[in-house]
């Protein structure tokens, strides 16, 4: 997990540095704020990962000498097939249409989106492990 955390920490470090230089040099608001946001986007999860990487034992994927048996067991839950992403995507598209042509598609879109959310929750209870 260390290398993973370093990648994110580098993002935080680099944009912290660049953001500071940019702000001191230009005093321009928009760019400085966006660079600050990017600094946080890298730094916050990066620090968390780093903190965590020092407390966890290395995973098989961190260990260059790991054999496949080391990773035996469930990898995660992977739903086989599901119609709900399609329904949610369709709903989101109808909601987006409402922002162009007016309100009536909003009802269709929200109905589909809520149906998809309910569907996904129920489906997850049946999900199997791989």
């Amino acid at each position, binding site marked *: 997990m260390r290398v993973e955390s370093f*990648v994110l920490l580098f993002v935080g470090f680099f944009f912290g540095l660049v953001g500071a230089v940019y702000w001191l040099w230009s005093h321009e608001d928009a760019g400085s704020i966006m660079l600050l946001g990017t600094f946080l986007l890298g730094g916050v999860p990066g620090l968390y990962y780093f903190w965590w990487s020092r407390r966890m034992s290395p995973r098989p994927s961190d260990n260059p000498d*790991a054999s496949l048996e080391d990773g035996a067991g469930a990898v995660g839950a992977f*739903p086989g*097939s599901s*119609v709900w*992403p399609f329904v949610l*995507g369709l709903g989101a598209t109808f909601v987006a249409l409402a922002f*162009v042509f007016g309100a009536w598609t909003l009802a269709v879109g929200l109905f589909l989106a809520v149906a998809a959310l309910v569907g996904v929750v129920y489906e997850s209870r049946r999900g199997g492990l791989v």
Partner: protein
Amino acid sequence: MTLLAERPAVFDGSPAHEHEAGPSGFLKWITSTDHKVIGKNYTVTALIFFLMAGAMALLIRAQLASPDSTLLSQHTYNEMFTMHGSLMIYLFVGPVSFGGLANYIVPLQIGAPDMAFPRLNALSYWLYLGGGSLMMMGFLTTGSAADFGWVAYAPLSNSINTPGAGPDLWIVALILTGFSAIFTGVNLVTTIYYLRAPGMTMFRMPIFTWNMLVTGILILIAFPVFTSALVLLWCDRHLGAHIFEVSGGGVPVLWQDLFWFFGHPEVYILALPFFGIVTDVIAVFSRKPIFGYRGMVFATISIAALSTSVWAHHMFTTGVVLLPFFSLMSYLIAVPTGIKFFNWIGTMWRGSVKFDTPMLFCVGFLVTFLVGGVSGILLASPPIDFATHDTYFVVAHFHSVVMALVMGAFAGFFYWYPKMTGRMLREGLGKATFWLMFIGTNVTFDPQYLLGLKGMPRRIAEYAASDGFTTLNRISSAGAVLLFLAVLLFLVNVFVSWWKPIPAGDNPWDASSLEWATTSPPPHHNFLRIPPIRSQRPVWDYNHPEDRILEHAKPRPVGLVASAGTGTVLLEDVRLDGPDTPETWDPDR
């Protein structure tokens, strides 16, 4: 150099996954959460948008082929170049890489059964398709499709200058595809962080996967800014928010800041995946490990970081940006990019290079990207930018860049098509495609550098005969026909492979990364068995037990020290009877 003491002679067994018999046909299309199906959906959809955008490009070139042309009205011409750019940038080059090829290939390259969030992955695709459809719906409205350029500068994009539903559809479409890209970015980063096979450490990942990780992070940096900016623009148009309008105390140039803070990293979101493809393909067809693997990784990260600090070099002529800062940072990008070129050439150096179609496209990529990159360095200089801004010089510059990326994409198609379909594409047609595309690119876009230097502005529908632009525009339009033929030949190639299939086998290129260890196409959840991962080239190690395995994580002195590097190994490894052709492929070997 250390040789590992022992090498497992057979695959380590891993628990066999039950093969899931899901729905087929239309139902499979709308319900599958398998990253391979979604990846193919993305690729095919993106190619359809590519064909539409290409047709618009042909109309643009037809319009400009003669002076005082009346083929298209000014208004239609504006729609054409806007939608051409929007489709190509937002709906083709990006989605085909991070949604299509990466979606399919990254889990295979790290030995994962699927993406980390399969349903989120499917949602990404549907948001992308929904957004793309909404954008195209602009042509069906009573007004017109969006016609303010793919950058939608304020105040041209406000409700007075570009009223109507078409521009609004463009805005909400890009909000949808923006969310789609963000979800894909989250999925890619999580997958690469959490689902790598045992032994697949970060510094053993193929460069394509590394680049997709960096692309994923870059998506998370760039796309939220753009999506928020679009929401602000919508508020300006419909709620009178006056964020980008001087009249209400707003700042029009703020749009440019927000847009380019997305827009420049976007260029690298488009480019890095193809850098990755090119790196892997060059190594495979030079039959050598990648030269300077870690240098490649650090160069990728540096390019991505610098690309997010140079956004205002698109805004030099606004007069309100810090010229020395942005100019300096833009120049700095040339350093890691130069390292990449050095390493690409170093990988080919003393290799046993085979110029199959994917490799040809990679070499075409190198040449074309070099032209685009060097003209980009020129534009990073404010005085030169002031003189050439908004001329065809800039158009030519970024078309050299994106055509290089298109060649990278075709390298990827030809390289991974056997894995995705189990069939080979025809080499002869492929090589013809390459030469048509390579020559076509140069014939189309090289004259545009000269046109720009002669002062032809971009985004004009007409020019007068007395301007002296006619000849160069004619040449450029002729080149566009060559590009059309190249794409046509590619489609013929796909058709022929479907009509008279040549079975590909699992590993037709004798490649080295993990996706070639499984069947073509791979089974549900990808792997029945995974070879032991002891280096950056697990499949090569497995297929070439006579070759030495190098200790992990140590840089390999490739090509520098002949006796210690793979130079010697390679000479022993050259097979005089030639590589396996698909017809002679023996799957039981």
